[in-house]
């Protein structure tokens, strides 16, 4: 009996263009089911570099990572923020569920120091996640960081501008971020296993959902005179 087409397609050596190959990579759930479905291994890769490319800060690029970071901060390892663009605000991180005792901020004076610190942390094996804002980066540096992340089994995230998307990168996962009407738009540029990924639009949290509603109701700006004051007087014991 000749083998049926279904049987042939079950052969792991056959790849269909509308799928990405399932690869066994150790990963951590991103907390967003739609995104997990598109990521090889079902989440952020744990021992690899991930590039998040966005031109602006404040569109939700960190809240995208928040569920994973909150989960990783339960481990006995560090979460490193290397050369963040602004001062990390403790109550904000706390409200996302990140254990602050595990959070370490590293300020650097130059790009070389940022890369050095990121590589050292990724390689150490004692950092669960390393988030770095290095500015423009060269392929050689990225390759070193990727090797370090593999060696230290660390979740490395590099934030960069979208113009980096044109340059080749050894990072196995590259995602371009954009703001889309109160949601966060994601376009996976590169992932393990290949295949084209459809653009995603994630509602990051309820606050963003509120934001979307507000945007829909009031397409133009609310007058600066706020309508109703919720009087909550704090601070006096």
């Amino acid at each position, binding site marked *: 009996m000749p083998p049926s087409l279904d049987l042939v397609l079950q052969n792991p050596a056959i790849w269909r263009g509308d799928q990405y190959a399932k690869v066994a990579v150790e990963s951590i759930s991103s907390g967003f089911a739609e995104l997990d479905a598109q990521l090889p291994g079902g989440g952020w890769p744990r021992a690899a570099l991930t590039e998040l490319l966005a031109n*602006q*800060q*404040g*569109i*939700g*690029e*960190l*809240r995208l990572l928040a569920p994973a970071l909150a989960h990783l901060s339960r481990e*006995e*390892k*560090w979460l490193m923020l290397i050369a963040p*663009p*602004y*001062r990390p*605000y*403790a*109550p*904000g*991180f*706390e*409200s*996302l569920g990140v254990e*602050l*005792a595990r959070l*370490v*901020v*590293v*300020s*650097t*004076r130059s790009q070389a*120091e940022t890369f*050095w*610190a990121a590589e*050292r942390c990724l390689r*150490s*094996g*004692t950092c669960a996640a390393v988030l770095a804002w290095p500015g423009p980066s060269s392929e050689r540096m990225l390759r070193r960081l990727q090797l370090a992340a593999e060696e230290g089994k660390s979740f490395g995230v590099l934030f960069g501008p979208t113009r980096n998307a044109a340059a080749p990168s050894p990072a196995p996962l590259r995602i371009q971020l*954009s*703001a*889309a*009407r*109160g949601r966060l738009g994601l376009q996976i540029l590169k992932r393990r296993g290949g295949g084209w990924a459809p653009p995603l639009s994630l509602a990051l949290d309820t*606050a963003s959902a509120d*934001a979307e509603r*507000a*945007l829909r109701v*009031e397409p133009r*700006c*609310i*007058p*600066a*005179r*706020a309508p109703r*004051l*919720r*009087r909550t*007087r*704090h*601070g*006096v014991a």
Partner: protein
Amino acid sequence: MLWACLHIPDFSLQLLQRAAAPVEPVIVSTGGNRPVVLSCNVQARSHGIAPGMKMSAAIALAPDLVERHRDATGERHALACIAGWAGQFSSMVSLSPPDALLLEVEGSLRLFSGLRQIMLRLSGGLNELGYTGTAAVAPTPTAARLLARAGLHSTVTDPAGLESALSGLPLALLDQPAETVRMLALAGVHTVGACLALPRDGLARRFGQSLVDELDRALGKLPDPRRPYEPPARYRARLALPAPVHETEPLLFAAKRLVLELAGFLRMKQAGVTRLKLALRHEDRRPTVVALGFSAPSRDPQRILRLLRERLARLELPQRVEAILLESEEARPLDSRNLSLFPEDNVPEEERSAVLDHLRARLGVDAVYSIASHADHRPELAWRACQIGVRGEPGAAEPSVAEYRAGGRPERPLWLLDQPRRLPVQEEAPALDGPLTLLAGPERIEGGWWDGNDVARDYFVAANGQGRRFWIFRERGAASTWFLQGIFA
């Protein structure tokens, strides 16, 4: 009992060459009015210089000779430091001045899986400290020392075999006056074996009881108690460099000798160092001091050296360095760790803090910090930079995660500006890359009258046309003056 003896021949010369091997002929002399060569290095030997030679003769042979006086105090101290290092191999270490150590090793056989392993680690470790020595094993300390002095790496474990092992050794190795040895030689007695063959009472009468006693102790016929070495509370060692240096690498090389010694000392103490001081001595200046701090006690020499390398590479030395001094300032107990079946299931504190110590050593102590919430309503004061691993204060004014989730508490941004930034106003509304839409608020935050930084602000969450979200406020009573304070990243 099984005794191992570590004998370091030409100890005073080896001490000089420990930090770096000199290229010029070097000799150690007795000093004083009629200096005599005590020991000399290979280069000096090739000029024809030999121990026992007068200094004037030696200088005539090699005019570029470097002469150093013997430093008996320094040697005693260096020997004690080696004893501290050797304490990791045995609980009973005894000094045998001027140039040997005795270790009782029978009690350590099981821990180090056999005599061969112990001896390999002893002599290998000694080489790493910068010394070359002979290691011999015998059932009595005196016999072990005789064998080691003879330059024999021999191992005698059976007391019955002692006599035959010692019989060939020359009498000059004994701790006897030179006169006794000379007289015995005149009588045709050159070896220990020949001496043992002589009648005991006659030997004692002619050459003194001490000779017979020493031979008896060597053979185990007399008790041979040794005073155990008592290590000091802190490690402190000095190493002179043969020639003053300005570069990092030779300094690190010299420091490595001492760091390895320190690591052995700490292992013996079952401790790890938390504060360490390296002083670099200059000729006529105050020493340059490099202080290292460790977040968790450590005795890993590689880790200590890595931090030292970072610090030394960034150091501006005012002058060349002629000696280094390493001192453990503070140590804390650190138990040995059992190897885990699953190596990743628990990361010890020492390993976790290693990366932070390295970052601090290179980027500066203030560049690596953690953040914590602080009990204050004013956003700029509601956080603190703090030491890593410290939890925020209990009862901080900001609500907990659960409260945020459940009660719909006002959102807090992830980035905070160091200084609130004044926003331009377009058409009566604040603008930042386009007009801002107010999404949530106002949230009135008032407070600070008690410390003079009184604030009364209405906070809003705002978004611009590109989808960026900001935390902005306006002062109460100044309706159209807007400030940006945070970014919802």
